[in-house]
């Protein structure tokens, strides 16, 4: 199986081309936020250097969220465009699962997190058992404190990674009673090679999407929808009080 993998959900933009037993190319840029200008040029350059015949790929994998809304859409539209043009399926890799693959094989608790503003993080809790990923808590948006309490309750050593682990380092350090390590830079952020490795498992399990049906999982509604829901709720309460 040959997979093109993309991740532009966070601070890093990253692209890779991988086969079952070989990582053919990987290109990561973590410099300012210029994903729109870097993601596809990186992929194109990587493909050119390995003389890739695009028609030989089996699927396009993309970190499908959560993450920066705009970043997700750049990766998603790029994957959808390639899928449409080459008539290839897409693999939707949950962003935090892709990040957990940076620590493939580790039997410690793995907790990737991305800063989600409003004092929350997008996070998930994982571990590997005999090389197989186990999802201990599926990805969601949580207050940093809630996540820390959850990790404390597990009581085992945890590896923290993702941009959120740095942004919230001080707060985590003050709440976490479970022993923890913060991943070093080369393993801390999104890597398309990890997305590709995760996608291989999904693809083998037949978890593919058409390019047309693929869309990001934002894990959060837009601000306008949130405010509208609040207004409607307030309206209903007022109606109730009036009766």
């Amino acid at each position, binding site marked *: 199986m040959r997979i093109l993998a993309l991740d532009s959900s966070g601070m890093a933009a990253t692209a890779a081309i991988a086969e079952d037993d070989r990582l053919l190319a990987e290109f990561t840029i973590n410099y300012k936020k*210029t994903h*729109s*200008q*870097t*993601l*596809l*040029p990186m*992929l*194109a350059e990587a493909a050119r250097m390995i003389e890739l015949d*695009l028609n030989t790929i089996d699927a396009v994998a993309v970190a499908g969220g959560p993450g920066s*809304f*705009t970043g997700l*859409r*750049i990766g*998603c*539209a*790029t*994957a*959808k*465009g*390639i*899928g*449409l*043009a*080459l008539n290839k399926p897409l693999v939707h890799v949950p962003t935090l699962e892709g990040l957990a693959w940076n620590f493939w094989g580790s039997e410690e608790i793995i907790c990737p997190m991305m800063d989600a503003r409003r004092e929350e993080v997008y996070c998930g809790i994982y571990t590997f058992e005999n090389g197989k990923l186990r999802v201990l808590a599926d990805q969601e948006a949580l207050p940093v404190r809630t996540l820390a309490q959850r990790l404390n309750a597990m009581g085992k050593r945890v590896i923290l990674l993702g941009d959120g682990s740095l942004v919230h380092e001080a707060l985590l350090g003050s709440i976490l009673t479970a022993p923890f390590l913060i991943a070093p830079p080369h393993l801390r952020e999104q890597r398309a090679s990890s997305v590709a490795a995760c996608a291989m498992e999904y693809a083998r399990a037949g978890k593919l999407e058409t*390019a*047309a049906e693929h*869309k*990001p999982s*934002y894990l959060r509604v*837009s*601000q*306008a*929808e949130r405010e*509208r829901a609040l207004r409607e709720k307030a309206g209903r309460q007022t109606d109730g009080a009036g009766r």
Partner: protein
Amino acid sequence: MSREDVTILAIESSCDETAAAVVVNGRDVRSNIISSQIALHTLYGGVVPELASRKHMEKINQVITEALETADVTLDDIDAIGVTYGPGLVGALLVGVAEAKAISWAKSLPLIGVHHIEGHISANYIAHKDLEPPFACLVVSGGHTHLVVVKDYGSYEIIGKTRDDAAGEAFDKVARAIGLGYPGGPKIDRAAREGNDQAIHFPRAKVGGSVYDFSFSGLKSAVLNYLNGCRMKGEEISVPDVAASFQKAVVDVLTEHAMHAVDEYGFKTFALAGGVASNTALRASMEKACAARGVRLCCPPPVLCTDNAAMIGAAAYYDYQRGIRSDLTLNAVPGLKLGER
């Protein structure tokens, strides 16, 4: 299609329409697919950028596939891809730009980033097969009010623009104030047909320093003041009369400035473009004014006035012929100026 024909797949996602089209030689529209988000944004009284971006993402592949199928072509028949890269909502633009770049790369097709307003102007090439520059054009939409001299294909001089609100924006704001809701343009147009456009006199703003520039925020305030005044005095408000009188004030200013340019520059052809060009009162007023001067008025049908991709295909064709190409670093430029690259 002969070998010399140039077939362009065009993509537009700058605001609240997801659109794709196949256009041959800039003027022959083989398909023009538009997925409108109006119903979604109506719930919020206007376009919500984040929701627009999300909706584009969900629809874009279907819209492109439908455009290819309707035109009875595949990507192998396409010679180049045109895409709107500005101005517009950045998140919305990025969806079309990223998608177009990916297709262009995967199929090794030339890519052409197109200016949205250049697209609106170029809609006239589709509607009027014999139209060639030079001519003058009034571009009026929800985001733009430009009086433009089209010197040649791809060569523009903006001689007048709005200092504050766009004409379409004024329609939306006034429509909201009189309870007609979003989208304001068509709703005011319809309500105005039942009203008296002489009922209330609203100001026609002159802008200091330029005879061609526009200002609509004063007019909007005048309407709001009028409505407040009526409410304070307990007078009933006639929605059709307010709509008709407001619309007349906008149309008068647009027509006057347009005709001033025609008289000053001596153009024999004048074109309308943009969503507000569908307004029936504006069309009637411009037709009358142009006829009185022996000037030909060009105006695209409504489907080419609203945001659409066929117009982007038309503009991309003339860029293609002049050798203009974009590379894979093409980015969305929300504040892109006409004539800039």
